[in-house]
Each structure stands twice: as structure tokens, then as C-alpha cells.
């Protein structure tokens, strides 16, 4: 190295550069992969990509170590006859054998009872295809990870304003002046959020973070507001209280764009709590008909909403006729929050009263006084012409700190209302939607409604997942009991729009609601970090009936690595990595849209598959063809699609003009977008364009999309929505009220089983309210005084990066972080071994003291701990000896109670897994403790896996030095 000759000139190796999309996490940044002599030399962010604009993260930059990881599976494997699940004794088989096994099994199931086949998928990005496969197969037992992830966030907001954070929308930090981030550690939008926050701070914006722990983003907040876990609902309701009390709400916005001024019927009876409707001819559809009433201040009487010239009251109590008392929804909200004073909330949340007041004032005043006016004319759905787009520059972002609690749905409703009060929905500086959002409230997709929806050899008539709008939309039998294995869309969790993957194994094991035959798991580590009660669930996976047959007879796992789940498979399907396969980030699923318009993207292989790895997409298409599922075969029963890329291009929802998987370059020559005939060169066009299709909407369609006539008509034309109707904010939720009325026995609708009436009546409140999380209600808090939570480390993705030689040096094992007070009380010191115990079990780990944590909270990084030998790590690896998994302490079910014995430890509205509700105590471990507890039998490398380089490794692309 005497002279630094730029390497690219001096290298003799052949260098190639290829674009694709990262999948070291679900953020989906554009990457540029440089190869040298066919080996990955360097992965960088693609500067031309709209999402990450050239930056990359710690994981993305470590893709090399994922690609060449010794933990990779490379051959299909069958559990050795006679060996036990979990022992990871496999023999390699050919793909043909693997397909034969599956075909035979699935054919039989589909021919008899399709719901015996359950397909559940984890952190994948192909729900459009997996969901379609399930529908075509005819099984309702399909869901992705959303139920254990953040469905509260999706449901809470989509049921309120037709969009959400998560992958559906976000804060407009380019224009915001005040940004409040609640319960977010890293989020899906990893890189873009970081780009935006730092730009926001540089531009002088004020950033407040509400979080029990100060790490990552919270670290750079101007103000950190530590809060007790699970109490954000109280804080948000108190903020609303103060905003209403001070008149710091956007009255115009509430009146025009929400149901705040609409009159709620308060006459006892089956219309109680529903909006009063007049006789306007009702149109077919799932949207809100415009037939409700306002109370006009000027004429002092009820008028049709959006009546030109009317100025409705937000507050007050009126009589429509002698026996029909009515109140505007806003009045009900004001009454609701009356007792949620800052003083009260301070007590619940630990946030001082003055802080709550001050933050409320900051929000209200910034929203009101720093108004943004963009010179963009637009027309609303009521045909009012507007000269400008206005915005109130207060932006929020929230994630699982709100979502992952059993009271999360209502907390998120409260947040949605707060954002609405401030007038920040799809406006500059506030919240912004991303296509295909906003959706109608609720979105139109529906599931089946009874057992008859599932029939042999028949695709589902509806979708496996949907958005119930009323009790009649539930997927239950005549007794009101669930049709789905995870009990989603049942009276236990009526709005479980993403399913309840976290209960599938337990339910199937118990045979409640029924047994299944085959469980197929794709890209989810259900024997480890995506399962609650992990130790027990591992036993269930291995449990047998008296006749010696496994309680879950057959488990197929498609994974790319030797995860903990792989050990429990009967059949292992080795997947490719993201650098080896085609993928689409489709408008049919969760595309990577920007605020300014739809964006979708693709992956294009940059290296050939390793060993016999096969993309799961190809597996599904092969299976679909073999099983002759209608979508995958031609009329004559012959295979329709050569492979996945062929399928993506040629699959049409309706012949000739359908929306397909990819929105860009449709039509024969790529001249159309969103819909249009298949374009044989679509992949190449994506490839040429950095693997992205970005359609920036005209400026006048970019804001106020819930009510923007131009946008809504555009969206309808392009089949994003069915109706070009206004999507008014549901400040007051009639959907919830209808469930409540059913539970109260007041309506004709389907009725819940008796045991659940009280539960539904309580939690289906049309206005947000605060309650102690369900598990907390049933916990002895004197015995278990602390709350235990996890959060994501930025440099690790769930469980799957411990096989990455570079990333694991950053997080080799984990500690339980806590306030030094906890140690003082427990008589132990920083770094000591401790037991952390919940009412469900205990885990031994090492502790670390930290000042940056609310004293009633203990926390750790998620999923760093590993089972011994998994991921092809050595038995002595830190991950299994010093690392631990908090999931052992978290139950998938609540303690038996009045509402039933096997209720999921989830939000009673949405079925969102309540990861962050667990109460614990911490005490010193016995002297001499050296290892975490529990420990599991070491698994050994599987056939086809590379031997780990035991002593050292030096990666040098293209040639060895």
C-alpha cells in the first residue's frame, strides 16, 4: 500500500454494478450492489432512490455477511423419521420430493376441508401473493405478522381517518415546526425517518419524544418526556382536554372535514349513539353517506351537513324533536375528556401536570399561529374552490410504544383525535397519506361471514382478511364462535384486521376452535421471537396426542436461515436471499409510496441463488399450478405462469385493463400506469429506473386527499378506491357504537356470545377512553411492580442478524436496563446477574443501570438472545449464553377471567399482541450464575449448511489475500 491508487482503476477483477432493493429490513431502500468477479464487493444506498436518497443503514451495509452467512439453508430438508421436532435432525431431499409431499398433503386438505391448511407469514413483503394463494386455496387461515406487530396502529387510525402511520402515511417533517414522537424506537421507515428528523432539526424544528426510554431518536429530541408504559392514552386524552379547554382546536377543520359537528342521537333505543340521518337517498357502498345533520348556529336548527352558509355548533345539547335529544359528536368528546385533566393524567403517566399543559399549549399555539399557506388551488368534494392549501405544522409519529398494549387501540384513537383537533390530517406540516391511502372508513375489503364461506376445492369468495364495518361482517358461526384458527374477526377481537398470528400455534395445539393439519410458516420465527410464551409454545409444537401423532400434524417452514423455527419443521424450504430473487413492493400490499404520490419498487437478482435455494414466490406458483388453483392455471388446467417474474407481469385482476402487482410501465409498451395490459418488458423498465416506479401526483392532488375531489376522482379512475366520496374523520366512531349496541342487545345485528357481551360493550366505545391494560388489571402490582418492555436496536433486525458476523459484534448479547434505584432496592449492582420474573415465568440475565429510563420500567433490546446452536452459532456464542429473550415472560393468553379462559393477551378490539403489558420484578441471582436461563438443547448445523469459520474470517471480495 505504498501508493493509494484508486482501487477501481487498479483492480484487475471484473467490476459490475447492479441496482436492487434492500431487504435487511422492511424499509426497502434502494441499493446499488457492486460486485467484483461475481462476489459482492460493496452495497451502498442508491442516490437516485426516492426513499433513502443514497443513504444506507448498519444492516443494509452488512448485506455481504448475510449473503455469505454460514447459517444459510441451501437444500430442502425433511425431518428424519423417528427424530423429534426441535431436535433439528434432517435429511436433504430434492425439490421434487418436497413438492410432491406438499402437493399430496395440500390436495387432500383442499379436497376435504381447506381450513385445515394454515399459512402464516412473518416479516415478508409479499402479502399480495401469499394472501392470494390462501384465497385461491380456499383457506381463511391466513395472516401475516400485522396482528402481533402493530395492527392497533393500522386499525386505530384507519378506522379514524382512513390512513395511518406505519407503512401507510407519516409526519411531514419537511414543513412541520413541532414534532412529537411517541413510542418509536426505529420503525419501518428507518432511513427516511432519520433523513427527515435530522433535516427537521437542522431547520430549527422542535422535537419532543414521549417514551419510557431515551435511546436512538429520543436521544436527539429537544425534550424527552418519560412516561410509564401503557399510559399514553391518559396523556393524550389530557392533552385533548386542555386543547378543548383553551379553545386550541381547528374549528374550521373539525366542522368541514370530520364528524365533530354531526348530531348524535341520544334517544334510548336501538339508534342510541348513532348519528341522526335524514332521508337522503342512500347509495350503494361502504362509505359514509352524506345524510347527517348539523345544528346551525345562525338559524338555530338542524341542517344537512355541509349545507352552504351554515355554521354548525360543535358544542351544546339540542332537541331534534320532543323525544330526540341530540348532541354534536364534539360535545360528547368534550364530556368524555372532562375528567381526564392534566392533574389526573400526571398521576397515571408520571408526566408532570405542568409538562402536559405546556405541551398542549405548544401544540395548539404552533398549529394555530404558524399556519402554512401553499399557493395551490384545489377543489373539495363539496365543490368548494380553495385558493390555497393550508396546514398546521404540528406533526406526530407513533409506533409500537402505543400499539403493543392491550389498550393501544383506544390510545391510538386518542392520538388520531388529537391530530384531528389540531387540523393536521393530510395537510402540509402535519400527517400525510401515502398511496393507496386514504381508504374509506373502514376500507371495503371484507372476509367471509360464516363457516359456509369455506368450501372444498373452492377459492374463498371474499378475502382472508378484511375490515369489518358492523357486527354482520364478523367471521363467526351461528353461535358467534370463530371460523378462523386464530379467532380473528370473532367477537373476541372483532376488528382484528391483520389476524392473530401469535395465537395460531396455541389454538391449533389445543384444538380450539379446531385442529388443523398443516401449518406453513414463511419468514417468521414462531419458535422464538415472534411468539409469546416461547418456552411453552416450543413444547406445544412438539406435543403429541395419545396416538403418537403430533397435535399439529405437519409443519412446513420456509426460511433462508437456520432459525429456531426451522428446528420444529417437518419440511424445510430453503429460501433465497434478497440479493438472489425477484420481488415486488406492490400497490396491492404495502408499497413504498411517498407523500407526493404512489411509488412501488422491485428486487432484481444481483447474484445467482446459493445451493438449491428457491424463492418462496416460485414455491407458491409451483404449488398453485400443481394444485390447479384457478388463478395459476389456464382454463384447460395447464400451468399459466412460467415463473414468478412471468406471473408478476401477466397476472391481471381483470382482463386487459386490470390493476396488477406492479403499477409502473403497464400497457403493451409501458405507456400506462396503475392499470393497463401486461407489458412484457416491465421488469427491464423497472431495472432501468433504479427498480422504482414513482408517480408524483399533480400538486393540487397531494393534500387533503380525504376530501380532494381531484384526487379522489383520480384515485377512482386508477382503481385505488371504489368511490370518489369524502372520507370524513371519524372523531366519533359509529362502527364501534354498532358493536356496542349489539352487545347491549339493542340491535338486530348478530349478537355476541353471552360471556363476551360485557367485554364488547366496554371496549367498543365510540370515543376513546383510558383503561389499565388488560394484563395489568389482572396483575398483583405489589408483587410485580415494574413494567418490562423491549425495543429494536437500529443495527439488528429481529432475530435474523445474529448470523451476521459484523452486526453481531455490535449486539452480541443483551442486558436488562433499569434505573439504578431498582438495583439499590434489590441489593444488586450494575452488571450483576439477576432474575426477572413475571407471573408467567422467569428469566436470568445481566442487568445494566441507566439514567435514561423511567424508574418503573425495565427494558432490553429485542430478540438478541438466541437458542443454543441456532443460526449456526457456536454453542458458546454470547447470544445463547449471555443473551436472553424477554418473550419467555410474556403470555399469549390472559389469565382466566370473567370473559373467558383462553382470551388472547391482546387488544380486545383489534387482537393486537400486548407485548408491552407485562409486569415483572427483578432480584439478584444466586452467586456464581454464569449463563442466562432458560437454556435449550444445542442444535447442530443442518445438511447443506456451510461450516462456520471457527477461528477467523477476512472478507475480501473477488479474491483472497
Amino acid at each position, binding site marked *: 500500500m*505504498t501508493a*493509494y491508487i*484508486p*482501487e477501481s*482503476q487498479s483492480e484487475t477483477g471484473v467490476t459490475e454494478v447492479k441496482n436492487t432493493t434492500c431487504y435487511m429490513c422492511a424499509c426497502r431502500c434502494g441499493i446499488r450492489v457492486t460486485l467484483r468477479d461475481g462476489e459482492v*464487493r*460493496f452495497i*451502498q444506498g442508491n442516490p437516485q432512490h426516492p426513499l433513502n436518497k443514497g*443513504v*444506507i*443503514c*448498519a444492516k443494509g*451495509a*452488512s448485506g*455481504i455477511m448475510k449473503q455469505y452467512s*454460514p*447459517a444459510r439453508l441451501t437444500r430442502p430438508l425433511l425431518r428424519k423419521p423417528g427424530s423429534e421436532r426441535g431436535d433439528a435432525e434432517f435429511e436433504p431431499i430434492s425439490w421434487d420430493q418436497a413438492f410432491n409431499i406438499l402437493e399430496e398433503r395440500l390436495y387432500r386438505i383442499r379436497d376435504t376441508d381447506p381450513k385445515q391448511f394454515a399459512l402464516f407469514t412473518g416479516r415478508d413483503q409479499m402479502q399480495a401473493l401469499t394472501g392470494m394463494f390462501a384465497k385461491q386455496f380456499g383457506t381463511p387461515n391466513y395472516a401475516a405478522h400485522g396482528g402481533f406487530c402493530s395492527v392497533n396502529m393500522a386499525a386505530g387510525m384507519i378506522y379514524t381517518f382512513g390512513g395511518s402511520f406505519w407503512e401507510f402515511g407519516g409526519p411531514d417533517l419537511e414543513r412541520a415546526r*413541532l414534532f412529537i414522537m411517541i413510542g418509536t424506537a426505529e420503525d419501518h421507515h*428507518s*432511513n427516511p425517518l432519520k*433523513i427527515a*428528523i*435530522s*433535516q427537521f*432539526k437542522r431547520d430549527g424544528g*422542535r422535537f419532543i419524544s414521549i417514551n419510557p426510554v*431515551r435511546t*436512538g431518536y429520543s*436521544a*436527539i429530541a429537544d425534550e*424527552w418526556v418519560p412516561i410509564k408504559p401503557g399510559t399514553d392514552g391518559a396523556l393524550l386524552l389530557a392533552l385533548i382536554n386542555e386543547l378543548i379547554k383553551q*379553545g386550541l382546536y381547528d*374549528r374550521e377543520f373539525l366542522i368541514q372535514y370530520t364528524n365533530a359537528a354531526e348530531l348524535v342521537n341520544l334517544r334510548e333505543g336501538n339508534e342510541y349513539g348513532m348519528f341522526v340521518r335524514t332521508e337522503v337517498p342512500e347509495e350503494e357502498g361502504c362509505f359514509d353517506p352524506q345524510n347527517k345533520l348539523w345544528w346551525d*348556529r345562525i338559524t338555530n336548527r338542524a341542517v344537512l351537513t355541509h349545507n352552504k352558509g351554515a*355554521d354548525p*355548533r*360543535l*358544542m351544546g345539547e339540542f332537541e331534534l324533536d320532543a323525544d330526540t335529544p341530540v348532541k354534536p359528536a364534539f360535545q360528547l368528546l368534550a364530556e368524555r375528556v372532562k375528567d381526564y385533566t392534566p392533574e389526573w393524567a400526571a398521576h397515571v403517566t408520571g408526566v408532570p401536570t405542568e409538562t402536559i399543559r405546556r405541551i398542549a*399549549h405548544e401544540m395548539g*399555539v404552533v398549529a394555530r*399561529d404558524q399556519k402554512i399557506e401553499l399557493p395551490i388551488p384545489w377543489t373539495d368534494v363539496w365543490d368548494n374552490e380553495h385558493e390555497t392549501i393550508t396546514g398546521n405544522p404540528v406533526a406526530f409519529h407513533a409506533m409500537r410504544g402505543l400499539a403493543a398494549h392491550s389498550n393501544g387501540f383506544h390510545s391510538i384513537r386518542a392520538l388520531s383525535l388529537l391530530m384531528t383537533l389540531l387540523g393536521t390530517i393530510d395537510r402540509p406540516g402535519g400527517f400525510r397519506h401515502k398511496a393507496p391511502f386514504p381508504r374509506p372508513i373502514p376500507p371495503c375489503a371484507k372476509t367471509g361471514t360464516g363457516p359456509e364461506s369455506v368450501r372444498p376445492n373452492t377459492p374463498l369468495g371474499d378475502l382472508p382478511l378484511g375490515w369489518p364495518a358492523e357486527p354482520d361482517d364478523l367471521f363467526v358461526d351461528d353461535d358467534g364462535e370463530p371460523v378462523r384458527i386464530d379467532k380473528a374477526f370473532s367477537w373476541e377481537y372483532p376488528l382484528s384486521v391483520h389476524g392473530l398470528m401469535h395465537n395460531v400455534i396455541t389454538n391449533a395445539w389445543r384444538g380450539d376452535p379446531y385442529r388443523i393439519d398443516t401449518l406453513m410458516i414463511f419468514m417468521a420465527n414462531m419458535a422464538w421471537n415472534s411468539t409469546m410464551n416461547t418456552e411453552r409454545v416450543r413444547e406445544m409444537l412438539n406435543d403429541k396426542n395419545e396416538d403418537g401423532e403430533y397435535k399439529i400434524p405437519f409443519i412446513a417452514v420456509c426460511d433462508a436461515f437456520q432459525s429456531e423455527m426451522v428446528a420444529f419443521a417437518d419440511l424445510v424450504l430453503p429460501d433465497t436471499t434478497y440479493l438472489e430473487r425477484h420481488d415486488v413492493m406492490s400497490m396491492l400490499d404495502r408499497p413504498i409510496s411517498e407523500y407526493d404520490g404512489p411509488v412501488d419498487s422491485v428486487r432484481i437478482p444481483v447474484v445467482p441463488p446459493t445451493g438449491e435455494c428457491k424463492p418462496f414466490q416460485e414455491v407458491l406458483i409451483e404449488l398453485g399450478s400443481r394444485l390447479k388453483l384457478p388463478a395459476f392455471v389456464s382454463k384447460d388446467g395447464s400451468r399459466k405462469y412460467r415463473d414468478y417474474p412471468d406471473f408478476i407481469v401477466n397476472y391481471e385482476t381483470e382482463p386487459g385493463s386490470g390493476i396488477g402487482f406492479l403499477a409502473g410501465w403497464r400497457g403493451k409498451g409501458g405507456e400506462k400506469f396503475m392499470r393497463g395490459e401486461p407489458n412484457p418488458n416491465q421488469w427491464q423498465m423497472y431495472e432501468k429506473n433504479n427498480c422504482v416506479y414513482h408517480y408524483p401526483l399533480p400538486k393540487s392532488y397531494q393534500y387533503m386527499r380525504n376530501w380532494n375531489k381531484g384526487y379522489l376522482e383520480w384515485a377512482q379512475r386508477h382503481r385505488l378506491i371504489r368511490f370518489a366520496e369524502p372520507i370524513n374523520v371519524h372523531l366519533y366512531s359509529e362502527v364501534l357504537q354498532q358493536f356496542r349496541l349489539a352487545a347491549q342487545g339493542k340491535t338486530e345485528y348478530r349478537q355476541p356470545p353471552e360471556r363476551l357481551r360485557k367485554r364488547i360493550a366496554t371496549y367498543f366505545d365510540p370515543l376513546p377512553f383510558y383503561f389499565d391494560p388488560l394484563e395489568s388489571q389482572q396483575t398483583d402490582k405489589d408483587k410485580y411492580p415494574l413494567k418490562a418492555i423491549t425495543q429494536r436496536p*437500529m*443495527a439488528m433486525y429481529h432475530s435474523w442478524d445474529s448470523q451476521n*458476523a*459484523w452486526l453481531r459484534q455490535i449486539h452480541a448479547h443483551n442486558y436488562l436496563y433499569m434505573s439504578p434505584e431498582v438495583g439499590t432496592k434489590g441489593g444488586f449492582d450494575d452488571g450483576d446477574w439477576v432474575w426477572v420474573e413475571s407471573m408467567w415465568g422467569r428469566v436470568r440475565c445481566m442487568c445494566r443501570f*441507566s439514567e*435514561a429510563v423511567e424508574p418503573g420500567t425495565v427494558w432490553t433490546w429485542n430478540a438478541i438472545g438466541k437458542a443454543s446452536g441456532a443460526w449456526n*452459532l*457456536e454453542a*458458546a*456464542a*454470547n447470544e445463547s449464553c449471555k443473551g436472553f429473550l424477554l418473550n419467555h415472560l410474556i403470555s399469549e393468553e390472559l389469565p382466566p377471567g370473567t370473559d373467558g379462559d383462553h382470551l388472547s393477551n391482546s387488544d380486545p378490539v383489534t387482537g393486537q399482541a400486548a407485548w408491552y403489558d407485562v409486569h415483572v420484578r427483578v432480584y439478584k441471582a444466586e452467586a456464581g450464575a454464569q449463563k442466562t436461563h432458560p437454556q435449550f438443547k444445542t442444535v447442530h448445523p443442518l445438511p447443506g449448511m456451510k461450516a*462456520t469459520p*471457527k*477461528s*477467523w*474470517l*477476512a*472478507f*475480501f471480495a473477488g479474491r483472497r489475500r
Partner: protein
Amino acid sequence: MTQLALVIDLNVCVGCHACVTSCKEWNTSGVAGYLSDDRPYGEDPTGTFFNRVQTFEVGEYPHCETVHFPKSCLHCEDPPCVPVCPTGASYKRPEDGIVLVDYDKCIGCKYCSWACPYGVREIDTHQKVMKKCTLCIDRIYDEALPESERKPACVLACPTSARLFGDIHDPDADVSVAIREEGGYALMPEWGTKPANHYLPRRKTRIRIHEDELVRADNPLKKEHERPVGPVREQTLDDVTSW
């Protein structure tokens, strides 16, 4: 004279470690490579990195700041690691101030690492020579790269643009402006090493709200209250007194 350097903005660094692994990734197959890893899949994995991100806690709960702190060779203007090197392997380039190690000369005596107060030099246990940040010298002068990418790998990677790169001797360079205007400082100034890399401190934004702003004439609550209508029927002053 040119002195290239990084300026790291602690005000926006979120501690994501992107700079850590992108540095490793670029350099392991670059002119400064390889960067070996020991026990990569075993107990206490360890390896050579040029850049590390650390975390500090400042203050006591609840008045506590978490500071993420990336650190690589600071390319000192008066680098104590250079004169002590017996072979001349460690040197500072006069043309741009980058401090480098010539792997062909280095004997792996580690003496330079003792002479660096910042703990940024690492000996590669397998190549057995001293290694450290090169400021990605094989990127920044590579004319085959587009101009916009002639920057260190860590700088291109950083999602918060917390890492600025440039010539701190050029008063108009971004880095110099940032140091000047944002209070840029050097680490351990007590040793007179004059680190070229600088750090920008945390800055806070606050909002002050005046009481009047809560009242305001156009307060929407006013629209919800009834204005008194018609004459008041109860007693008024007029009923009880006259002047």
C-alpha cells in the same frame, strides 16, 4: 494547505451504526483491507473496525441526555502517533493532512496506538499491521466515481447527515462553516494534538408561549357560547341606584 476531516454533528446522530458497518464494508475489500474478524460466529466475536459508535448518558433521570458518539481517527494536525513510529509507516500526508499507515512498512509494534490518546488505531490480528481510518482515500480521489460520491463511505451512508466531510482549512467549506457557526470542538484539547475531526454539540430548540396566546380574540370557544339575547330581566344597577 488542505486538511481534510470529518465533522460529526452530535445534535443529529442517532447512533444507528450505519457509519460503522459501511466503513467496514468498504474498507474490507478496499486498499485498506482486509479487516479481519475473530470468532465471527463464536464466543465474544471481535474484529477490526475503523469507526465505532459509542453511547454516553449525561446527567441524572429525568434530566438525562443520551449522546451517541461516533469516533474514528481524527487526523490530528499534530498527530502524536506519527513521530513515534519507528519505521515511518505512520505518516501524515502533507497535501491533504490525512494520517495513514503504510502497511508495507509497518512492523506491527503497536507503538503508534499507544501514542494516540483517542483509541482509534487497531492492529489487525491477522494481517498484523496497524490499521485505522484512511478517510476513504481510495474513494475521495477516485475519478472513476461521480463527483458526488467522492466522499468517505461513512459519510455517504449516514442517514442523518451527521457526518460532514471537507477541508477544515478552507474557510468557505461546509465543515469550516459548521465548526465556526455551530460551536464545533475538538476532543481532548489538553494534549495539543489538534484533531482535524471536529464535533458539533447538541443544540436545543424551545418554544415560548405567552399567556395572551391562549386567550386570543378569535378563540373558537367564543362561537360555542350564547351571546346574551334581548334585555336582561333580572335586576341591574338601574333598578337600584341613580346618579
